[in-house]
């Protein structure tokens, strides 16, 4: 087990360094040095030349651009691992890390509930669908599970917003809190935040839970063929006991590890969902950084998303080994 962890961590570190290297190389492939590249962009996005000079100095300092490429690269790696990702161009004096951290709670506030809801709904509905294969529910799950992948998530979000905030105005039209309202206590703040987060959460859940239910259904069908299920029936246990206590527990494994393995995709999805709902999280920040061509911010966000994806994949692998002794036995 420990050997596996160490080996995997070394591998992750290696991949992360490669991702960082790619980010380091790309701006240097383009004509001119990165600072110039940034400055021409700053000229178009930030009109004040005083700012441009300040930003330029910051960038020169950050990358040590007067030094050789090798020295720059080492400096860049040291900076990154010390948690310094440079300064944003559009929110100038603020650093990239500062900005990301200030937006992260909002993203977590919609991602974590959406992930949990997806998991629970996928688990229950997938299990029930597998119990009577070929029935209506099963057919619906199969069809929806395969076809939701074809729908662009931003489109689903736009339709939800249009129907439930404009035609039938139940939910707010975007944002994370009612503008201009001063919250007296934590409860009124929570209520307001939940009200604004509801539609993004529902959208993310609808978008991903059919796929989750389909995985659960397919796993259930595999597990139901096992001998121990037959034994459970032979013992005279009720259908529901066999279904939830015997079969579903084993079919659940990939869903549990999927809780973490899917995190990277969820963040990518949040770029679109937060943009549609004008929800001020990390994804919305990413979209703004793209529109305003804030290169340091885009790079910082990419590093963050890569790091989260790598770590969550690692946790998923680890969990699978902890939960399923067969995998460990097979390894040894």
């Amino acid at each position: 087990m420990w050997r596996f962890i160490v080996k995997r961590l070394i591998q992750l570190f290696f991949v992360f360094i490669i991702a960082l290297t790619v980010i380091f190389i790309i701006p240097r492939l383009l004509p001119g040095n990165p600072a110039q590249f940034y400055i021409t962009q700053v000229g178009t996005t930030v009109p004040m030349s005083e700012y441009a000079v300040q930003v330029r100095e910051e960038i020169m300092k950050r990358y040590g651009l007067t030094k050789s490429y090798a020295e720059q690269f080492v400096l860049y790696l040291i900076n990154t691992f010390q948690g310094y990702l440079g300064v944003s161009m559009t929110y100038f004096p603020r650093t990239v890390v500062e900005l990301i951290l200030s937006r992260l709670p909002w993203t977590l506030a919609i991602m974590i509930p959406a992930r949990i809801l997806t998991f629970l709904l996928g688990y229950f509905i997938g299990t029930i669908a597998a119990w009577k294969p070929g029935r209506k529910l099963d057919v619906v799950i199969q069809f929806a599970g395969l076809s939701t992948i074809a729908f662009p998530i931003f489109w689903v979000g736009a339709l939800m917003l249009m129907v439930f905030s404009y035609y039938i105005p139940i939910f707010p039209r975007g944002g994370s809190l009612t503008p201009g309202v001063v919250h007296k206590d934590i409860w009124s703040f929570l209520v307001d935040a939940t009200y604004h987060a509801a539609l993004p959460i529902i959208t993310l859940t609808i978008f991903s839970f059919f796929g989750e239910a389909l995985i659960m259904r397919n796993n259930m069908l595999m597990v139901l063929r096992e001998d121990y299920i037959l034994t459970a029936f032979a013992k005279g246990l009720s259908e529901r006991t066999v279904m939830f206590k015997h079969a579903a527990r084993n079919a659940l494994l990939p869903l549990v590890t999927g809780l973490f393995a899917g995190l990277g995709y969820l963040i990518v999805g949040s770029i679109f969902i937060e943009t549609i709902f004008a929800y001020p999280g990390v994804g919305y920040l990413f979209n703004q950084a793209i529109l305003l061509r804030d290169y340091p911010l885009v790079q910082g966000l990419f590093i963050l998303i890569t790091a989260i994806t790598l770590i969550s994949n690692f946790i998923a692998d680890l969990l699978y080994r902890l939960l399923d002794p067969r995998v460990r036995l097979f390894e040894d």
Partner: protein
Amino acid sequence: MSSIIKRALKKFVKYFRIFSASKVGIAGLIIIIVFLILALGASIIAPYDPKATYVSRPFTPPGFKHLLGTDEAGRDVLSQIIYGSQVALIVGFSAAAVSTAIGTLIGLISGYYGGAIDTVLMRITDIFLIIPMLPLAILLALFFGPSLLNIIVLIGFLGWPGLARQIRAQVLSLKELPFVEALHALGASSRRIIFFHLLPNISGLIFASMIGGSVGAILAESGLAFLGLSDPRIISWGRIVARAIGSGALVRGAWWPLVFPGLCIALLACGFSFFSHGLMLLVSPFLRERR
């Protein structure tokens, strides 16, 4: 000469008969053909110039004059969708072709040679598999500029690792078969064995996964376009949606520039994935024999 054509035709009919057993596959093929016709005949079929603005009629609801309504600048949505199908198909096919070519080559070499070459290539594949693709595509499109060619190369270049693994697995089992041993005994070079004997054996899988890969390419393109990373000179379905939202279609209650382009993305993506599903019948011999 005519006998060759006749034989090819006969083979085609035979394969088509196997393929047509899959209703889903046929449905997919029809969807693709419809969009292909729209794309090829765009200049004839489209009722308006897709870029012509009619300032007097922004957000006209669907009606006789504009079948699918107009967008914020009075552009005809139907005409934009018809021209947009060109971009969707070009990106879908060519990006999938790029990633299929890379994936096939890496899978073949990795599987055939094994050893150190295999280890190195598969480590590289793992890296591409684990790094989040869309954010990387966004980053690269931002730096290199979102021209149509760049978008195709980008999506193609990032989409191959899954296929490389599949092909490698196929080659690993294929190369143990007696006919490869016979080829070695006959003194055939490695290159000959790979490209003239192994490649034809997995051509069905390659074709089916290329069609399947188009789904990802189309969705990736529409996603990038939605984020403003598309060629400003061309019309893309994702961009129609993004522009409509950005210019207040929701406030005006104008659902048509949102709903129709999004439906087209989903329909074409479904078409490709259905077609690829049907093709798998041809690829997988044991599925075929049962029929």
